[in-house]
């Protein structure tokens, strides 16, 4: 590429400071709270505040200014400034849409920081993870259990510290007992628990749910995840260069991998102010939507399956097969697209691919519309999914869930629209935000159906109107210790990445927050008050990366007995409505 094409077909970095009023507001209401202010892009700012003012500033930004907590994470910056750091990234969605990251420096000796969870419940998982990974103690955090590390991990070994351990090290198991405490907030807890273990021969992915029931009604639920924590963040810091991490991020998720890849590439591109050519942006947009298609079709098929309508499940998967073909046509593989490099994409769409792609999209649209009619006309569907698994608005506001989950509860949160101008080519393609009011399973399914149609439109538009020009910007320099956020709207919601470049051709820190991470904490509230047979349906409507739950422990609070049952049993019950596994 010559310099001419770069100039012609890329955006110039603008000098505006979108979101400045939030910083000014913080300065006004909380004078001398801000120690430092640094702008990464035109709409991303990081303010370092004093520990004493953290909770107040966060509360003001979150509740009063329409902010939503995107990600909370830690960083070992002792080699940079002698401290640890804790970052809270907020997506400001009030009048002005921008990103504000609030950073606090944690003293390397005391290793304590103030927890914002009592004020903003959404931060609970992030802070628990900081505690596990860095050993920093959040003062005031109500939930002191380990999140990520297994029960038998040695006490003082914190993996993400720079000096802690080599990524290849595997500590010896120290004990067999499970010490994780499950808490029952609404019921009473004089029950005996019989754990079976998260490895179950029939499950796809391990995870553990614990439902506290009273007969058939769910009183409360608790869960435990992170059985397949792979240590990707440590891997990205130690073993891979920048371009290789783009390939690694493709494999974070089995359904939304490309969104992670784009999110990560965006962080480096934002941090280094690299201009991505227009054509590359549109290619990325098209592929993001192709991924959304296959994911939503999978979820709608699964919802049919949980309701017992297997024919619908099979037919939706038949349509989904066409979207996988589309992905293969455009990128060379059905799932791991591997298209991203820092600065653009590596493969172009040739004319043949574009024409075939558009034909496929039209076919999918036609078949999908027919199937949606069939699904909605199926008897009993409505009685199974309406009014089930409601996510109340106040819970939603507290926990910052993302994706169709929150759009179905009446909030208009979609990173493609809210932050669309700074996210690939979403500012240029025609689509609308799908949202519904009721917050039940049916609303979520309807939101997803609407989004499928939108995605089909975007893909068709993108393939038709691909801007001319280069697909990759090369020749920029990597500057150490620059950081920024990158975000995309994955099928499940917003994926947020943050990375800081290092001084050795590698990343200093990379944080990847998948959408489901933000959605899990709301699950227990959605399960309360529903019958146990609906539990798989509700979990499915949350759309975890397919069957992330393995086994469920049913605790009957009245009879004071509990039993652990494989997830498959509950799924069967949800489908067949016969042979309930919940008789204790």
């Amino acid at each position, binding site marked *: 590429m010559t310099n001419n094409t770069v100039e012609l077909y890329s955006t110039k970095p603008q000098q505006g400071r979108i979101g400045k009023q939030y910083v000014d507001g913080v300065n006004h209401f909380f004078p001398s709270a801000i120690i430092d202010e640094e702008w990464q892009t035109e709409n991303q700012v990081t303010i370092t505040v004093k520990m004493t003012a953290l909770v107040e500033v966060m509360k003001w930004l979150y509740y009063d200014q329409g902010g939503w907590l995107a990600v909370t994470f830690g960083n070992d910056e002792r080699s940079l400034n002698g401290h640890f750091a804790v970052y809270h990234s907020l997506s400001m969605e009030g009048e002005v849409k921008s990103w504000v990251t609030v950073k606090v420096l944690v003293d390397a000796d005391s290793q304590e920081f103030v927890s914002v969870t009592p004020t903003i419940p959404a931060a609970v998982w992030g802070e628990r993870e900081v505690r596990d990974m860095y050993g920093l103690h959040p003062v005031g955090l109500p939930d002191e259990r380990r999140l990520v590390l297994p029960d038998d991990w040695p006490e003082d070994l914190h993996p993400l510290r720079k000096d802690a351990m080599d990524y290849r090290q595997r500590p010896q198991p120290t004990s067999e007992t499970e010490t994780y405490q499950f808490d029952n907030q609404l019921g009473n807890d004089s029950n005996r628990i019989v754990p079976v273990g998260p490895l179950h021969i*029939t499950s796809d992915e391990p995870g553990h749910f614990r439902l506290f029931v009273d007969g*058939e009604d769910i009183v409360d639920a608790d869960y435990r995840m992170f059985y397949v924590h792979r240590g990707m963040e440590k891997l990205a810091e130690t073993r891979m260069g920048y371009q290789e991490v783009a390939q690694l991020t493709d494999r974070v998720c089995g359904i939304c991998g490309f969104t992670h890849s784009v999110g990560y590439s965006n962080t480096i591109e934002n941090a280094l102010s690299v201009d991505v050519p227009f054509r590359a942006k549109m290619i990325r947009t098209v592929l993001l939507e192709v991924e959304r298609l296959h994911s939503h079709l999978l979820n709608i098929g699964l919802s*049919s*399956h949980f*309701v*017992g*309508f*297997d*024919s*619908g*499940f*099979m*037919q939706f998967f*038949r349509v989904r097969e066409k979207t996988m073909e589309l992905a293969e046509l455009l990128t060379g593989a059905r799932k791991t697209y591997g298209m991203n490099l820092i600065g653009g994409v590596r493969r172009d769409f040739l004319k043949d691919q574009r024409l075939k792609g558009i034909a496929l999209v039209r076919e999918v649209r036609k078949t999908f519309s027919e199937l949606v009619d069939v699904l909605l006309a*199926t*008897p*009993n*569907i409505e*009685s*199974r999914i309406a009014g089930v698994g409601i996510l109340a608005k106040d819970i939603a506001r507290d926990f910052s869930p993302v994706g169709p989950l929150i759009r179905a509860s009446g909030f208009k949160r979609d990173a493609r629209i809210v932050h669309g101008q700074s996210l690939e080519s979403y500012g240029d393609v025609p689509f609308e935000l799908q949202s519904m009011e009721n917050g039940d399973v049916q609303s979520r399914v309807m939101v997803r159906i609407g989004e499928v149609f939108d995605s089909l439109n975007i893909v068709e538009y993108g393939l038709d109107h691909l801007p001319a020009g280069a697909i990759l910007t090369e020749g920029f320099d990597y500057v150490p210790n620059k950081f920024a956020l990158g975000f995309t709207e994955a099928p499940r919601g917003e994926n947020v990445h943050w990375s800081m470049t290092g001084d050795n051709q590698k990343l200093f820190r990379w944080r990847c927050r998948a959408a489901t991470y933000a959605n899990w904490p709301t699950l227990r509230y959605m399960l309360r008050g529903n*019958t146990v*047979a609906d539990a798989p349906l509700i979990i499915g409507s949350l759309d975890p990366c397919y069957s992330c739950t393995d086994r469920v422990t049913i605790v009957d609070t009245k009879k004071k007995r509990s*039993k652990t*049952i494989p997830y*498959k*049993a509950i799924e*069967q*019950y949800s*489908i*067949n*409505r*016969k*042979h*309930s*596994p*919940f*008789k204790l």
Partner: protein
Amino acid sequence: MSPLEMPASGWIVLAVAQAMLMLMFAPLASGFSRVLRAKIHSRKGPGILQDYRDIAKLLRRQSVAPSNAGFIFWIMPWVLIVTMLLIGMALPTVTQVSPFPISGDIITDIYLLAIFRFFFALAGIDSNSMFGGLGSSRELTLGILVEPILILTIVVVALAVGTTDLGYISHALATTPWHQPLTIILAGVICAFALFIEMGKLPFDSAEAEQELQEGPVTEYSGASLAMVKLGLGLKQLVVAQLFLAIFIPWGKAASLNADGLFAAFVILFIKLLVVFLIAGIAENTMARFRFMKIHRAIFPAFLVAVLALVFLIFGW
């Protein structure tokens, strides 16, 4: 012939042959259901003969049981098959009268079906597995909901015709004009619904989509016992379908034991069964399932219509 006499040897041979044929063709019927299901899923399906291959493979495997399972666990597969065969022997499938009327009384048949269900549920409890026990309780609940309907409709027909012997009922409905057509038709519709549930199709339990064949009692079986259980369940579907056909669609059967008549009746029976399984297959695959807690709301109206049939009977319509 009078119901309590031992029939002539030709009839006994026919009865046994009939039962054996049903046993042999039960996997074909369930194979047909599987292929139909696959076609509605737009895929090829495993082939009609797949259940034979499954059973052959299972027979070669070792049969294991949970450690505290008792003898009920072991005899359940036998009970399933024997009760169904007994009903099978008595059904007037190709002849107008029942070939083995000793076990051909309607009341006997209903009790045989009940024994089937009882042992099925008992084995689930005996297997000491959580799936098993819970499946049993649900099976029994369903029994409570469905059996009254079945009994009522069949008794209505029996009263209308004047006898409880299946053969006589079938013969009467086939040869003489119906005195109370509305009653019989209404009873027929409701009996079809009840028998559809008895076929085990409403809770959608084929071997394609789920890992277990049927939840509950079947989980703990393996090897030859599992093969027999599968066979027994398939046989029940076939027998129940033929029960319906024998009572309510009794035309096209041979009047006596001659080869041509039997052959023609056999062909007609085959076609009738094909239609029944086709309709049942389409119905089970095109609907979502009811909530169990609300399933009684779906079944109870059927019971009320059965009572209505009784009312019609009393009024002589």
